[in-house]
Each structure stands twice: as structure tokens, then as C-alpha cells.
């Protein structure tokens, strides 16, 4: 995997123990950590110290997490990973729609977090493989409109290809239903028939690219939120 050393990551969390644990875990991988204990401080540091990524707790006492994401996104594209507790999908969706890149549900382990960070960093790194995107056994050639799984060519409809392309170009990132509907079908809302179409299309893509469509390995479902392309 890529060397994540030399990165600077901002951790915004009001819980001291969580900051401490994140600092220890990230430092051990050669990542330096800037800490912020509230939203205001977090936004300030995110915009002025130019960290390589932001880990943001959604439940801060002083500011709404979604507002923090919006504030940062006004003038920065720094990757944002959200930390949230279970059972609050609407918050997750709102944060992702506001521009966050990914989320982790508490409690999470250090390995998971590092994997997410690495994935984001890899996506942002300048590409060497040209128009061909590779994740695991899946290869997508953007210019040739060609998709292969384990070397075998797969025939996809134009819409199916557009979705795969979108997922590939955002791999590791959670794409909300809303975002996919907007980008692929140009819908600004989420009517049930459009969502049905999305589910059907995803199901069809899985039938074509997944070794076992009953247990997807490539296109993972984020319950109630959206989809992500997974890469081991």
C-alpha cells in the first residue's frame, strides 16, 4: 500500500479519549495529528493549516456537524471523514450530501480508519494508469467504455456503465442515492420510481460483475445511505 507517512490529519472531536486514541493510532503510522476540540476551532484549522484530511465527529457540542462540513467545503476540498454513532442515517446522508467523503460508525477500529484514509489518499494521488481504473479484480477503461472482471469483458448498458464509472472514479467514497440520481439521471429529487430504477440497475450490474451477486464484493450497500465501490 501507499506510504501514508508525512500526512497531517486534523481530528475534530470533543472527547479527549477519542482524540488520544486516534493520535496514537495515526502517529504509529507516521501520520501527524492536529487536534481540535470544538467545531469553531476545527473549521479554523481546516481552512488555515491545510491538513491532508479531516476526521470530524458529527456530535460536537458547539456546532452542527453538517454546518461544519458546509463551512469547510465553502473554500476547501480537503477530504472529510465523519465519525457518527449508529442509528442516525439522516445525519450521515446530510453530511455526505454536504460534501463529506466517507463515514465511520463508532465504535470503529484503527485498522478500518487507516484503510479509509489510505483509500482517500490513493484516490487523490496523481494517477499513473491513465484512463484505466483498477480495483481488485475489476478493471474499468473510461475511454474505451470497457469493463472487465478477472480479465473477462463484461457487457454493460450505457446507464450501467455510467454508474460503474461514477463509482470507480469515487472509489472508497460513499455515494448517496441522491447524488447518483442527480448525476446519472439528472434528478433533483428522490421519487420512488427513480429509486426503484436505481435498485434495479445496481442489481443488474451486480449480476454482471459480482462473482456471487448474493454476497457483493465490489459494489457494497451502505444501509439506508447509498453505495460504495470497495477495494481490499
Amino acid at each position, binding site marked *: 500500500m501507499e506510504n501514508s507517512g508525512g500526512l497531517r490529519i486534523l481530528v475534530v472531536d470533543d472527547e479527549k479519549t477519542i482524540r488520544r486514541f486516534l493520535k496514537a493510532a495515526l502517529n504509529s503510522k507516521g501520520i501527524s495529528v492536529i487536534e481540535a476540540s470544538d467545531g469553531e476551532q476545527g473549521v479554523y484549522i481546516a481552512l488555515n493549516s491545510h491538513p491532508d484530511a479531516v476526521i470530524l465527529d458529527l456530535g460536537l457540542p458547539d456546532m452542527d456537524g453538517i454546518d461544519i462540513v458546509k463551512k469547510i467545503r465553502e473554500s476547501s476540498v480537503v477530504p472529510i471523514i465523519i465519525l457518527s454513532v449508529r*442509528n442516525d442515517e439522516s445525519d450521515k446522508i446530510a453530511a455526505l450530501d454536504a460534501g463529506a467523503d466517507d463515514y465511520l460508525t463508532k*465504535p470503529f477500529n484503527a485498522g478500518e480508519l487507516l484503510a479509509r484514509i489510505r483509500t482517500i489518499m490513493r484516490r487523490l494521488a496523481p494517477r499513473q494508469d491513465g484512463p484505466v481504473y483498477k480495483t481488485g479484480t475489476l478493471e474499468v477503461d473510461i475511454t474505451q467504455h470497457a469493463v472487465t472482471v478477472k480479465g473477462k469483458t463484461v457487457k454493460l448498458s450505457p446507464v450501467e456503465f455510467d454508474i460503474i464509472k461514477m463509482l470507480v472514479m469515487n472509489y472508497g467514497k460513499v455515494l448517496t442515492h441522491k447524488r447518483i440520481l442527480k448525476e446519472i439521471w439528472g434528478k433533483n429529487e428522490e421519487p420512488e420510481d427513480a429509486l426503484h430504477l436505481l*435498485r434495479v440497475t445496481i*442489481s443488474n450490474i451486480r449480476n454482471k460483475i459480482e462473482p456471487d451477486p448474493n454476497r*457483493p464484493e465490489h459494489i*457494497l450497500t451502505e*444501509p*439506508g445511505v447509498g453505495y460504495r465501490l470497495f477495494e481490499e
Partner: protein
Amino acid sequence: MENSFLNRIKGKEFIFSTLLVAFVTVIGSFFRGIIDASNFAVLFLLAVVLSALWWGMASSVFTAFFGVLAFDFFLVPPYNSFSVSDLKYIYTFVGFIITGVIVSMVASRARRQAIETKQREARTAVLYRFSNEMAECETTPQVIGAVRKNVGELLGCSTAVFMPHKDGISDAGSDADFPLDTHEYAVAQWAFSNKKPAGSGTTTLSAAKAFYVPLETSLEAVGVLGIRTADGRVIFNTSEMELVTALANQSSVAIQRAVLTEKSREMELAKKTQALQAALLNSISHDLRTPLVSITGALSALSQDFEAVDAADRKELLQTAYDDSLHLNEIVGNILDMTRVESGNLKLNVRPCDLRDLIGASLTQLKDKLEGRMVAVDIPGDLLEVPVDFSLMMRVFINLIDNAAKYSPAGSEIYIGAKTEGNMAVMTVKDSGFGIPSGDLEHIFDKFFRAVKPRQVSGTGLGLSICRGIVEAHGGKIWARNNTESGAVFFIRLPLGDAGHGGRD
């Protein structure tokens, strides 16, 4: 008194009496002059007796007097005149009238007694049926419903029942056409507070539109029965009044019985809930403490003298602490889920969901726990959409699949299936493990119930009751049974709603 009865047929019976007298006179006129006129008196006496039996005292007295007049006028010479030629007829008349009146009295008493007996019988039958119906009712609303139905049918009236509520009384069920305004309420309230009938037809607050009778037992007033006759008629006659009183008495007893039963049931429930809460606290503190003990133990050993513990043991201790903290998280998650399900404010975000996706996502989340397991998934190729809350239904599948893994030997197969049956989706999770003792099948979805407790299997006994809570919140059903070969099968049946007509694409 029978006021209404008399009122209604007063005219008729005198007409009948007149006709009867006319009939007797006509018959007599055939024999006029052939037999002695005094013999006709017997015929007229018969008319008096019949009048008394059929139409009562007043009409028979009328028959007697009218009969004498007719007898004198038509049958006693000189004919067609009230004058009497022979003095003996005067005695006949006097004897006739005296006899007539006495016969009338006796016969009409017999008649009244017969009528009363019949009414009493009818009332007894009515009350018997009423009390039978009361006995079948279990809850207060049922009793009130039965009271209103019976009283309404028997008296042909609309009814309302008022029950004590806070400081006053409130409507506990009333017909749509029952006049319910503040004034009527006040009358009902008066009847309740003073334990006396009030309203229309009584001397108290008689301007009211309905009649109110308190429902009271020897212990207390349990409510008020409001009665309004169909035509707004004011008075009930004595027998109706007696019936009302009898019905009110029975209603009072039945209502009180229902109220007391409910109270004692509530108390029992409160006791049970208390015991359950105690059990909950007990179970939760035990379940929470167990992993905590090992986490604290492992970490304290490490932090006390890190260097002294050799590398392999350090790893072991850390792994233990980590595993148990995951377990702790699971328990907390279950308790949170349980609280949500129990509190009744489980907010369902129901949307059509691809069932295959749902099961796939559950399996992905259980990836580590299913390591080395053969999991067979059998879902029809068509898209099967079920309207559910994706995340909550995932909790159900995760719980069931996790259980299947926990309660079956490592490496054995787990089967997950889904199909449609009519407008239902039926899903199964099958393992080939130890199965469930048949006596426990009913109880495994109860809170804190754990069937077989193999040493290695840990849990709170909440998982399945959470599953049931979630499935039932979706209007579905969950149940279990044992495989014929080995292991247990769990079934979930969910309504498909409008979605789920698979393969619409």
C-alpha cells in the same frame, strides 16, 4: 296505572264493547217475544264477562250499563222505548248491574294478573339474557357496549353511558342521536353525584331531553345511564320503569365487576413489569460486567508491568480486551435496540428494498464472524422488493444469521432463503446446529429467554425479542421450528405491499 296502554286503546275498547252489546242485542231480537225477556240478561252478562276479560274493568262496567240500556230499549216490552211495563224488569236491571260490576272486578283482576305474569315472565327472560350477555363481557368497554345495545333494543331508545372521569363524568359510549350537550352533561352529572334519577320524566331537572339513572352498587356509583326514547316521549310507564331499574342494577354490577377486574389486572401487570425490570437490570448488569471484567483485567495486567509480560501474552491479553469490547458494544447496541422497540417509538423508514441487497449487506457486516462458513443464499433471480426499513431489517437478519453461526458447529452450513407466497415475502434462516428444545420454541422470542446455553455462546437473550419487535412493527411475523434433520429454522413473513412484484424491469 299503565297510562300509555290505556291512552292508546281507550277509544278502541269502548267501541268493541258497544259492538259486543249490539251483537248480543241483535241475537236477542231474533227471540224477542218468543222467550221471556229476563232470560236475555244471561246473554248480556256474558258480554260483560267477555269485556272484562278482553278489555278490562272500565269497558266491562261500560258494557254493563250500556247493556242494560240496550236490553231495556230493544228487548223489554214495550219495545223501542225506555219505559218498563213490568216491574220485575227493574229487579232484573239492578241485579244485572250489580252482578256485572262484580264480575267485571273479578275478571279484570284476573286479566291484570295474567298480564302482569306475562310481563314479569318476559322481563325475567330479558334480564336473564341480559345478564348472560354481561357475563360474557370482559372489559369495561365491552360491558358498556352490551348495556347500551340491550337497553337500546329493549326500550327502543338511544342510550349513553357516562363513567367517572377525573372530577366528574365523561361519555363512555353513546348513540349518534343521543343529545349530548353541556346541559345534558350537567343533568347526568347531577344524577351521578346525588345517586338519584334525573332529567326528563322525573321531578329533577325535567327539562332535560333524556332520562338519567345512576348506575350504583352497594359500594359506589359506577356511572350514569342516559336514555332517550325514540319519539322523545317523556314518561316511562311503571313496568318500563321497573325494567329500567332492573337493567340499571344489573349494568351497575357488571360494570363494577369489569372495572375491578381491570384494576386487578393492571396491578398484576405492574407487579410483573416491576419483576421484569428487576430481571432486566440484573441481566444487563451481569452481561455488561462480564466483558468489562476481562477488559479491565487484561489492560491492568498490561499497564502495571508491560515489560514483564512476554510478547505472546501481551498479544493475547490485548486480543481478549479487544474481543470483549466488541462484545460489549454488541450488548449496548442490543439494549439500545430493545429500548427503541419497547418504547414503541420505533420510527420506521419504510421503503421498498431489494431483498437480495438486504441479505447481502447483512452478510457483509458479518464477514468476520462467518469466516470459514458455507453460507448458501437462495433468492429468486428476479428483483424481490419488500417495503421495509433497510437498517432495522438488517438488524433482524444480522441477529438471525449470527445466532445460526453461534448455535451450530464451526464449518457447518447456513442456509438463507427468500421467496414470495401470495402477497407475502417469506424468508428463512436455517442452520444445522443443536436446534431448539421443543418446549422452548414458544419462548425464544421472549425477552431474556435463552434456550440452550452452550458454554462458548454469549448473548443477552435480547436478540430474538428485538427481531420480533422489528418484524412485528413491519406488520410481519417471525417464528421458529426445528429441522427434521438437525438445527433450527427461523421464518420471517412480511407483507409485500405494493412493491415486490419481482422483476418489474
